């Protein structure tokens, strides 16, 4: 049986599934329920500095978009950091860590961008027995207007500075949580590393307005006729997060830096993908907020089964294995030629592949063969784009298969050897070199 234990910055947890810093980790009651359900660790909801706690809106805090059957695809929120008293939180953190010593207890922090507040809160957290801290440089709403959260995360110099303070004033491992609301995710990650941070976690939520109330012409969630952008998360953001994780994993400046992956993880498979891109642990929120803590049991069982099937004894066995395969477009093999293949036994004849190809692509799928409704690929037209695969409602009905010999579309022989854009005759820079 596969071993799911992780050791992230020296912090061990029985599995890589942590609950992200968010409402599910705001208090002892929730966190203990999570641990009972099997979560490997939590990042306690972000603590602010001592004094009067922040206040939240009292109207709706969340908005969402849905897929068919009202499956929640994306969630956004305008909730702030914990609005509970700092002392209460610290006391509960200490208690929970004592009660659950085998689980990872990370504490998320967000205080003004000055050295003393960071120094003070780090000292308080250290006394709880927590395993590490995560610096919340990500929240894009509310706190950022006060110079915290993503306001820090968007300025690499601030990240570096705060990370350095934290390392100076605490022995605890420091994870810097990154905001995706930035052009190049590598910059803040590099800054974190320069500041001495032990790891990064990403992504925090994305600036978003999930919908507009067309009766009142106001963004949703709407508070008394007005709305504000919120932080977007859930399954819809996973592709964005995976890309950002991969950028950090393969960037020479940050390569090898531990990453805790966050963004739209709903299943074991999502988690495995993050780990394959280099993440040592993953953090989950929306899935738990949608289905409750029990879903971690599917994640654990699914990951174990897959690892057993593939022969991966530990998380480390496959961690980062996809990183070398993330490359730039210019290095993709242009001699790799595929054609769509429709399995007629599985085809239910909905015709979506045909109309997608006919209206929006390459007119490469029939709708009628010998007067009968039938969907077949016309190899002479098929560019192998994969759109038909993506719009087909039946799993595995349409697949892309590599061909060799002559490409019926171009009539030209397919070079069996690897060849990319950098050496392609149509590449102006190649021609220029040839001319010189």
């Amino acid at each position, binding site marked *: 049986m596969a071993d799911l234990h992780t050791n992230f910055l020296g912090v061990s947890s029985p599995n890589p599934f942590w609950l992200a810093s968010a409402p599910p980790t705001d208090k002892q009651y929730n966190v203990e329920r999570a641990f009972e359900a099997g979560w490997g660790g939590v990042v306690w909801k972000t603590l602010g500095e001592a004094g009067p706690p922040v206040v939240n809106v009292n109207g709706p805090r969340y908005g969402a978009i849905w897929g068919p059957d*009202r499956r929640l695809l994306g969630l956004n929120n305008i909730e702030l950091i914990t609005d509970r008293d700092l002392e209460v939180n610290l006391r509960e953190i200490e208690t929970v860590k004592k009660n659950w010593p085998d689980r990872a207890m990370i504490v998320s922090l967000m205080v003004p961008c000055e050295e003393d507040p960071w120094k003070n809160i780090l000292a308080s957290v250290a006394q709880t027995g927590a395993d590490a801290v995560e610096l919340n440089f990500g929240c894009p709403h509310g706190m950022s207007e006060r110079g915290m959260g993503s306001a820090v995360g968007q300025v690499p110099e601030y990240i570096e500075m705060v990370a350095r303070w934290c390392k100076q004033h605490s022995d605890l491992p420091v994870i810097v949580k990154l905001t995706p609301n930035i052009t190049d995710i590598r910059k803040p990650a590099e800054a974190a590393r320069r500041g001495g941070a032990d790891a990064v976690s990403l992504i925090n939520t994305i600036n978003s307005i999930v919908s507009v109330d067309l009766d009142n012409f106001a963004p949703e969630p709407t508070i008394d006729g007005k709305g504000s952008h919120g932080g977007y998360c859930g399954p819809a953001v996973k592709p964005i997060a995976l890309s950002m994780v991969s950028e950090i994993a393969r960037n020479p400046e940050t390569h090898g830096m531990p990453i805790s992956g966050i963004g739209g993880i709903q299943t074991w498979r999502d988690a495995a993908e993050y780990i394959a891109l280099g993440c040592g642990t993953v953090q989950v929120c929306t899935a738990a907020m949608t289905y409750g803590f029990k879903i971690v049991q599917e994640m654990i069982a699914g990951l174990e089964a897959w690892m057993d099937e593939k022969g991966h004894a530990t998380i480390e066995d496959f961690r980062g294995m996809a990183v070398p395969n993330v490359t730039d477009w210019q290095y993709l093999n242009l001699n790799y030629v595929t054609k769509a293949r429709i399995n007629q036994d599985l085809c*239910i004849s*909905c*015709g*979506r592949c*045909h*109309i997608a190809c006919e209206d929006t692509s390459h007119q490469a799928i029939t709708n009628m063969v010998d007067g009968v409704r039938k969907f077949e690929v016309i190899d002479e037209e098929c560019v192998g784009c994969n759109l038909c695969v993506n719009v087909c*409602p039946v799993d595995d009905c349409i697949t892309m298969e590599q061909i060799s010999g002559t490409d019926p579309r171009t009539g030209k022989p397919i070079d069996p050897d690897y060849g990319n854009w950098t050496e392609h005759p149509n590449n102006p820079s190649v021609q220029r070199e040839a001319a010189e």
Partner: protein
Amino acid sequence: MDSGIKFRNDGHVKEMQAPKKKFDLLIKLLKASLTTTNGRQEPSHNGFSEGDRAMAQNRVSPDIQAGRLPADQYADNFDDLHAPFDRHEAVVEADRCYFCYDAPCQTACPTSIDIPMFIRQISTGNANGAAKTIFDQNILGGMCARVCPTETLCEEVCVREAAEGKPVKIGQLQRYATDHFLETVEQHPYERAAPTGKTVAIVGAGPAGLSCAHALARNGHEVTIFEAREKAGGLNEHGIAAYKTTDNFAQSEVDFITDIGGIAIRNGTALGRDVTLDDLVANHDAVFLGMGLPGVNDLGLDGDDADNCIDAVAYIEKLRQTDDLSALPVGRNIVVIGGGMTAIDVAVQTKLLGAETVTICYRRGQEQMNASEYEQEVAQTHGVTIRHWLQPQALVRNDDGDVTGITLEYTAMNGKLSGTGETVTLDADQVFKAIGQKPVEGLFGGVSLDLSGGRIFTDDDRRTSHDKVWAGGDCVAGGEDLTVVAVEDGKIAAASIHKRLTG
């Protein structure tokens, strides 16, 4: 044997559970009753056993009574067979639609409703727009949603039937959309074109006539519908099971259709009795015939005319028109002859009225039944027995001439359908004839129309052999006898008439 009648009351079963002593006599009588009413006799050569004859002679009048059920049960029994979707159910179901290209459901729909589009409109919160999409092709979309055999039309070919054996519930969604429109929109969805000054006579205010009338009125023509019955709606009003069209929906739909204006309905005006086709042709620019099939096939047996050997369509009409189902007499043991929708409709409804046993007898096999498998299941789940390969041979009658049973001969396919000589006799307090309807001859007066198999011959535009007469619905040859087909006939004919009148 007055006391016997008590036994035949459905309520009797409960009495039977009372203390034995008190009901000794009753039990004895019950046993006797069971033998006479349910006993199966070995067939003799002529189909009558001696026992049959003896019992027929001794038998009391058929047990036909009203009020077999507790008064409050009728409303439940005749409520919607399927409760209409609420908004949540509709949206969940609409989400299952794949929005197919050249959708098979649309192709299968005789009126070519753009089903993927209306379902998408439901899922995006535009139910009234969905209804408009439906009405664009089928102004009787509300009724068709209720009565269409969707399991053999749109839903049969739904790709999700292929995918997982569960088609999108198109009929229910169509009902959701059209009901939503009728409940929330006052305004008729279409505007009439400027008056053309042309007049069209339509015979029959059934689905074909109403569909034709609406399309013609929309194009500015003046339409008069001549309806033999006292109410418009045709079989929708008179001939379809009550639980398929509750809350007087047929009349609501007639009102909805005629709301467009330019349609006058003259009820109680029958072709050949109150008006002649010659006059209609002479006094109108065009005539559309959509009178259905007013005649009913008989069994061709002695006793066909007995009071309790009943035309199923007429009985359903009575059931549909009564204000008080508990006042409608129904037999205790029922035999229905036929294999179509009408057979199912009368069988299920007599069961719902409290009949104790209802048996449908059909002369061919299950696959040949015109009633869909789904309809057969509806009958069976309501406790109706369906027997195949049995054809009527003789009606068993008592001394008063009342039918008390029916003898049927087993059949088999030997190249053609033929009797095997073996018979069975079923007790029957009522025998319902549901073996098809037929045209009534002599309706057309001096106008000559080509017929095909007794029905009116039409071309693809629903033109008859007379250049001012079009026809559609059950009275024409070819096509299935379905509401939705009649609607399409009316629509096609209206387009052809409009072209002629304005060309």
